[in-house]
């Protein structure tokens, strides 16, 4: 469980637990998933999953909402029936996630000023 943390002096806490939490870091954030979903809605099923040996099921069974790869079609179907997945779908079908622009507008700033359009295309 975990590597050594060389700078830590206390004997009890010398081991790092970062590797155990790696999965947590790799999960895509809500707004990234939301953008991906929007992109997919525009493309209309033109998406092909690339074959990746390192991923479970060669990366062919992917849940976009939860950002998870599955070993087979049946496992994926089972996941689709789960409560967690349904919750996630509900969350993603709601309003767009909070962004920096929202934060700016809430703080009493106007829309960003990009100036005049210099190139008329």
């Amino acid at each position, binding site marked *: 469980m975990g590597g050594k943390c060389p700078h830590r002096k206390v004997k009890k806490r010398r081991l790092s637990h970062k590797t155990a939490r790696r999965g947590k870091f790799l999960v895509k*954030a*809500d*707004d*990234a998933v939301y953008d991906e979903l929007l992109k997919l809605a525009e493309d209309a099923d033109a998406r092909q999953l690339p074959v990746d040996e390192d991923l479970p099921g060669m990366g062919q069974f992917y849940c976009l909402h939860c950002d998870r790869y599955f070993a087979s079609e049946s496992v994926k179907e089972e996941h689709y029936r789960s409560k967690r997945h349904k919750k996630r779908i509900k969350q993603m079908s709601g309003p767009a*996630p*909070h962004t*920096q622009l*929202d*934060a*700016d*507008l*809430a*703080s*009493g*700033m*106007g*829309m*960003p*000023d*990009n*100036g005049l359009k210099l190139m008329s295309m």
Partner: protein
Amino acid sequence: MRLEKCWFCSSTVYPGHGIQFVRNDAKVFRFCRSKCHKNFKMKRNPRKVKWTKAYRCLHGKDMTQDSTFEFERKRNRPERYDRNVTEQTLKAIPLITKIRHERQKKHITNRQKQGKTKERERDAKELEQDIQMLPKKDVMLSTQKTKVVVKVSQQQTEENLMEE
């Protein structure tokens, strides 16, 4: 020098303050203090946390739409320095903030007025229920009056149509 806004609570982040997180898709998240950073790491939604500006604006606690909000903007182009303009903006800033504060105060006092709509509803209900209690003359008069008004307006519209 740019005064950025905190991603979580929308307060101003002055240079040398707060912390900045750059995600591996090159998105930048700025936080004014460790409180906001921690809340972000806990994946809390600022729209659901009551002390953030985003929550307060979304739920009508603060004034959101006002002409005084149009001045402070993120300008994505270099502004050519002009001494006069700078002087005038520096003069205008305290004035604008004063006006904004007054309007915000007004907004909050209006918001905290108690049961205005409820009172109106109650009155309407009472009138509907107990209209028989009024002396018949008054009721008749009031209805007649409205009738007259309607007739006049109809005539007017007809006349207007004829003229057109």
